């Protein structure tokens, strides 16, 4: 089909009702089954493609192609379990798949109608009880899916699948039924705030750009997801790219722009591929280009690949980068809503923000505003990682306590270790200690702890993590990524990094903490952009909540968590070492000596503390002290 109008859009949607019903578990049509195999980066990285190909082949071989459809989704939500597959209509969830499992799935599940128990999810918190249905697994049942609603339900490379799930209905409403004032009004009522980190109200941003004078305006999508520990935007682009395109069309209509750009990290090849396909398909249907859906409104967009500079996530730097220059932030005002890309009024929204817009328009701002807290509305997607059993994407209503995310969804800390802190907001954020775990996901509540909501990275840390080392880690990141324009950020972060490094090396002095705090204030107050203004946060929040760890490094020259390289030694426990020689063979620097069947020794001068010996020792004979 070529260009479509609104009636044809609705026709496609109604044609897909039966298909979606199966995937929502509603009806059983002649035993038809849809095998939705996860195909996001997490699944691909865990070798899902051979599984996909094997299952397609097996189904064809057994003559089941009519009844059983294999569809690759962008789902990699519960990333720890990848590769995964959901079979609809029953919603059974199989995990950790390999091509060898395909035979059992086909003969037992598809032909005999029996569960393949060994491939089911096992609940570690409940004696490894198998849970067959995806929506009964606590990881999923505790989530509220709005942004990620299509994760397991559509083929991201097939626009019709997206249309079956209401894609472009919000755009149709915005382009044909309601005025631009009403679009902006609904977004304002929804209360949605920028999901990129700063949390500026999206409706206000759009209003400023709509009111700005000018015939040429731009809509930009920020997909330059750079925070270490964050992969929410990538997953949205891989699983539901049309939601983002539709959000941009609605934004364009609201401010009267006709050209857009998606600024995406080049490190996301799969997201770029799926976006490219989505754009081509949308153009073919006339959902991008001239006279969209016969509304008379024109809008088209292009992908612009980032070249690897964290600072380009900052809005002015991003625009300067699209113009082909070094992406260094510039002072505001003028704000991009007045003078943005090529000095034209510009709206820049984050991927997750844009993916929410179609549903806000379709269901109304009130619907969205009913979810969340007083000042933070809707849901937020977090990338949960680190020392937590269930790692992956989680979408929760604003206002959920961090404790619930880490324990109810994340399943708690592995190996019965103690939680020490939850790091939120990446290099701009901070560490929230265990005694503040009742803090709820709300922009202001999180800011109150010294962290920030940020874009959604959430890294759990346990007793084995050193908070001074974490502070040094983020300081090093900010220092390297500082663009160098503002002296306080360029030099201040360098000095701060030097001091924190000195502390981790046991060369700290007690005045260093005060010096760090003084430098931090200076860098925060006098840097131009968000990178510099927030760069000291990880240091400040760890000093605030974990001062005792700083003092242990400084006064006692001791790293309580046994992490900081200069303050630890690897030793072999004599009673445990049988002299098997394994550690000696794996040591890359020949620091270990000893005859066969005699206790071995580690030369501390040579040892680089890489952990190879610990990983190789079957007798737990090597300890870090």
């Amino acid at each position, binding site marked *: 089909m070529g260009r479509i109008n609104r009636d044809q859009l609705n026709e496609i949607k109604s044609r897909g009702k039966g298909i979606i019903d199966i995937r929502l578990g509603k009806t059983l049509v002649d035993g038809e089954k849809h095998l939705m195999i996860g195909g996001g980066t997490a699944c691909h990285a865990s070798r899902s493609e051979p599984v996909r190909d094997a299952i397609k082949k097996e189904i064809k071989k057994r003559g089941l192609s009519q009844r059983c459809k294999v569809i690759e989704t962008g789902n990699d939500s519960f*990333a720890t379990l990848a590769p995964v597959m959901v079979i609809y209509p029953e919603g059974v969830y199989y995990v950790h798949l390999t091509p060898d499992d395909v035979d059992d799935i086909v003969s037992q599940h598809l032909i005999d109608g029996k569960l393949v128990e060994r491939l089911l999810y096992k609940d570690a918190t409940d004696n490894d009880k198998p849970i067959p249905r995806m929506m009964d697994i606590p990881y999923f049942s505790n989530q509220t899916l709005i942004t990620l609603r299509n994760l397991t339900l559509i083929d991201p490379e097939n626009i019709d699948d997206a249309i079956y799930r209401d894609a472009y209905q919000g755009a149709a409403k915005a382009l044909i039924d309601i005025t631009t004032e009403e679009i902006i009004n609904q977004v304002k009522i929804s209360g949605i705030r920028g999901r990129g980190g700063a949390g500026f109200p999206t409706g206000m941003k759009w209003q400023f750009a709509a009111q700005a004078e000018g015939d040429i305006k731009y809509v930009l999508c920020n997909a330059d997801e750079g925070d270490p520990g964050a992969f929410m935007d990538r997953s949205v682009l891989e699983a539901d790219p049309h939601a983002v395109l539709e959000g941009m069309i609605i934004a364009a209509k609201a401010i009267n722009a006709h050209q857009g750009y998606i600024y995406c990290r080049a*490190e996301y090849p799969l997201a770029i591929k799926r976006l490219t396909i989505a754009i081509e398909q949308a153009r073919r249907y006339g959902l991008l280009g001239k006279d969209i859906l016969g509304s008379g409104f024109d809008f088209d967009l292009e992908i612009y690949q980032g070249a690897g500079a964290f600072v380009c996530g900052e809005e002015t730097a991003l625009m300067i980068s699209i113009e*082909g220059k070094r992406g260094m932030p510039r002072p505001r005002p003028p704000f991009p809503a007045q003078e943005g890309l090529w000095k034209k009024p510009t709206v820049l929204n984050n991927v997750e923000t844009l993916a929410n817009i179609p549903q806000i328009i379709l269901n109304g701002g009130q619907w969205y505003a009913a979810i969340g807290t007083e000042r933070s509305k809707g849901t937020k997607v977090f*990338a949960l990682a680190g020392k937590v059993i269930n790692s992956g994407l989680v979408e929760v209503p604003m206002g959920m306590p961090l404790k619930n995310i880490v324990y109810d969804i994340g399943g708690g800390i592995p190996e019965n270790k103690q939680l020490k802190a939850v790091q939120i907001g990446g290099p701009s954020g901070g560490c929230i200690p265990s005694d503040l775990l009742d803090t709820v996901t709300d922009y202001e509540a999180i800011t109150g702890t010294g962290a920030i909501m940020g874009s959604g990275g959430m890294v759990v840390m346990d007793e084995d993590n050193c908070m001074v080392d974490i502070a040094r880690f983020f300081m090093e990141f900010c220092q390297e990524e500082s663009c160098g324009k503002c002296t306080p950020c360029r030099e201040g972060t360098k000095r701060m990094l030097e001091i924190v490094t000195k502390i981790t090396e046991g060369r700290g002095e007690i005045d260093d903490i005060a010096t760090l705090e003084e430098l931090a204030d200076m860098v925060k107050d006098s840097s131009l952009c968000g990178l510099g203004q927030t760069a000291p946060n990880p240091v400040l929040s760890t000093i605030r909540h974990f001062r005792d760890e700083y003092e242990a490094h400084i006064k006692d020259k001791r790293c309580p968590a046994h992490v900081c390289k200069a303050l630890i030694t690897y030793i072999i426990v004599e009673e445990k070492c049988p002299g098997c020689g394994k550690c000696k063979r794996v040591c890359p620097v020949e620091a270990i000596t000893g005859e066969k069947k005699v206790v071995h020794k580690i030369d501390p001068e040579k040892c680089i503390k890489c*952990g190879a010996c610990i*990983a190789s020792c079957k007798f737990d004979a090597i300890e870090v002290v």
Partner: protein
Amino acid sequence: MTKPEEIDWGQLEAIIDKHRGESWALIPLLQDIQETFGYIPEESIETIAEALNLFASQVQGVISFYAGLSLKPKGKYVIKACRGTACHVKGGRSILRYMKKELGLDEGETSPDYKFTLETVACLGACFLAPAMMVNRAYFGKLSPPKVTSILAEYGKKKGED
């Protein structure tokens, strides 16, 4: 990836010609060259600047600003060790120390035979695989020293051979 002496200058000129006069297209042009040759030959800077009506310093400035652009040729296998937060808390730094020793390379270095380049990246976004790395386009996760050794062996790195 291409060794410096094997650059096809005709192909490089053709890439530059595609964007002639479009000063805004500097970054896509440089990415094109980087993608094709694995790096941006320093000798091409003047030609690029001329084609786009820019100063050579502007071209050089852009190349040095972005981590994705490089003036140095890279090895056949580019290893990207992840330095992200999740990898860091799961011992990524120790793994990197081990990798450096195994490869005999420091961050940003390429082996003399242009087989391996060792790089670090801020985050691969594969936090569930932490500690993780990429070799060209393939991901490897849950790394331990023995696993690193066996992955490197797959790519033809024998222990003790620098």
